[in-house]
């Protein structure tokens, strides 16, 4: 339990983030990105590709500190990060990859996690022996095993086949339901955002601003076609209003 009065929400207030290009001019990537996530809330950042979503995640996770503004992470600040590529240690087995990043995991928990993600039987395999989809699942297992206070996922299901992506989305929803954790997810897939998020944060093309925030109060299990269509219409309207 975090001590009373400790930071519980994730508060992001980025005034400006710019990159210096090779020719020396400064390029704005993010502008006035302000939002908060309640404990246990799942936020999805959606926006066109190349708009700076990954940069935003890196700032939130503390990997990029060169920006104007402030980010306050939940107290104790344990992080789980699923990168776009799996980023596994090729010289350690799948199970060891998880154990090294999350040393407090007990063997029973590890086994349960591996079977939930369809990794049973792959614990002793090296990443080089795993398919791309399996490696991605090990990276998910690692992030969950770390028992994070903040879980960050960067397009975790991109370039997987549709059926597998669907299944892993279900697993992610189940895992978040079992142990609520403040989650920030980046996706360019609106369906995915609608399926997983409590709150969708819609970004504009570069330099990214927030076009709008949509709260979804219906629980993840009960989101029917009608709700999905309504949200899609809302998102299309926000995009149109911005001239995107």
């Amino acid at each position: 339990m975090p001590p009373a009065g400790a930071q519980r929400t994730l508060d992001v207030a980025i005034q400006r983030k710019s990159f210096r290009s090779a020719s020396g001019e400064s390029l704005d990537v993010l502008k006035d990105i302000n939002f908060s996530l309640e404990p246990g809330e799942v936020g999805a950042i959606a926006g066109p590709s190349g708009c700076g979503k990954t940069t935003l995640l890196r700032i939130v996770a503390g990997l990029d500190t060169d920006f104007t503004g402030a980010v306050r992470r939940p107290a104790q600040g344990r992080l789980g990060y699923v990168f776009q590529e799996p980023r596994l240690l090729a010289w350690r087995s799948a199970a060891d990859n998880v154990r090294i990043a999350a040393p407090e995991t007990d063997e029973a928990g590890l086994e349960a996690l591996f079977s939930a993600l369809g990794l049973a039987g792959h614990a002793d395999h090296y990443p080089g022996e795993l398919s791309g989809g399996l490696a991605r699942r090990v990276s998910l297992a690692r992030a969950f095993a770390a028992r994070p206070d903040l879980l960050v996922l960067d397009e975790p299901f991109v370039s997987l086949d549709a059926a597998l992506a669907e299944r892993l989305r279900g697993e992610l929803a189940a895992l978040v339901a079992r142990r609520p954790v403040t989650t920030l997810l980046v996706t360019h897939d609106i369906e995915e955002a609608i399926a997983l998020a409590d709150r969708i944060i819609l970004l504009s093309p570069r330099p990214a601003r927030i076009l709008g925030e949509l709260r979804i109060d219906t629980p993840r299990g009960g989101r029917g076609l009608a709700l999905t269509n309504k949200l899609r219409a809302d998102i299309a309207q926000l995009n149109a209003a911005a001239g995107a």
Partner: protein
Amino acid sequence: MALRLLSLAVLIAAWQIGAHFAGPRLLPEPLAVARAIFEEARDGALFLHLGATLARVAVSFALAMFAGAALGLLMGRSRAADAIADPWIVVLLNLPALVIIVLAYIWAGLTETAAIAAVTLNKLPNAVVTLREGARALDRNLDEMAQVYAMPRLTWLRHVAAPQLGPYFAAASRSGLSLVWKIVLIVELLGRPNGVGFEIGSAFQLFDVTRILAYALAFVAVMLAIEMLVVQPFERHAARWRPKNP
């Protein structure tokens, strides 16, 4: 394996033929050298001198590799450390082995410490430069992963950095082991009362080619055994995660 043995047999045959033409004073026959090795082994002198040399090789090699890896890692990771230490490394790298040895003996006397220090300083810059290359090539993506999961420094070193540095460490060890034992021989020749280098020095004064070859070959055999029994198994262990038959 058969090809290797055949090649070795050809080398020994060439030696035998050479010995026939050069005469036993300049190039004794293989059998005479083998007999000399046996004689030296029987009265224990061979093991005394081999042991002394091997101990010096082991200590100075371990010191040079340990300090070289630490310094190389630091210099590869920190620009400031690199800028400060690089000129020293360049100077050491270009100072002839003989100069370092002679100066060490003059400054610290004809002592074991001076001998070990001289050999270590000769090998050190080489290890530093190789490991620095390895440190510069460390995967930044994995460092970020380690940062996100708040890995302790030692965990990072053992599980993230060390396996990536393995091939660089192996390369530095390979060239290092052969370099170190050659320099140890010079150190022994110039200022030690035992060891293979000392024996070869006294054999040289007596023009005893048989004894020179006996000691040299005995030590080469020891180094070959180390290569086959220590270095190669270590490399196989370090590479066990690589998919077979790529």
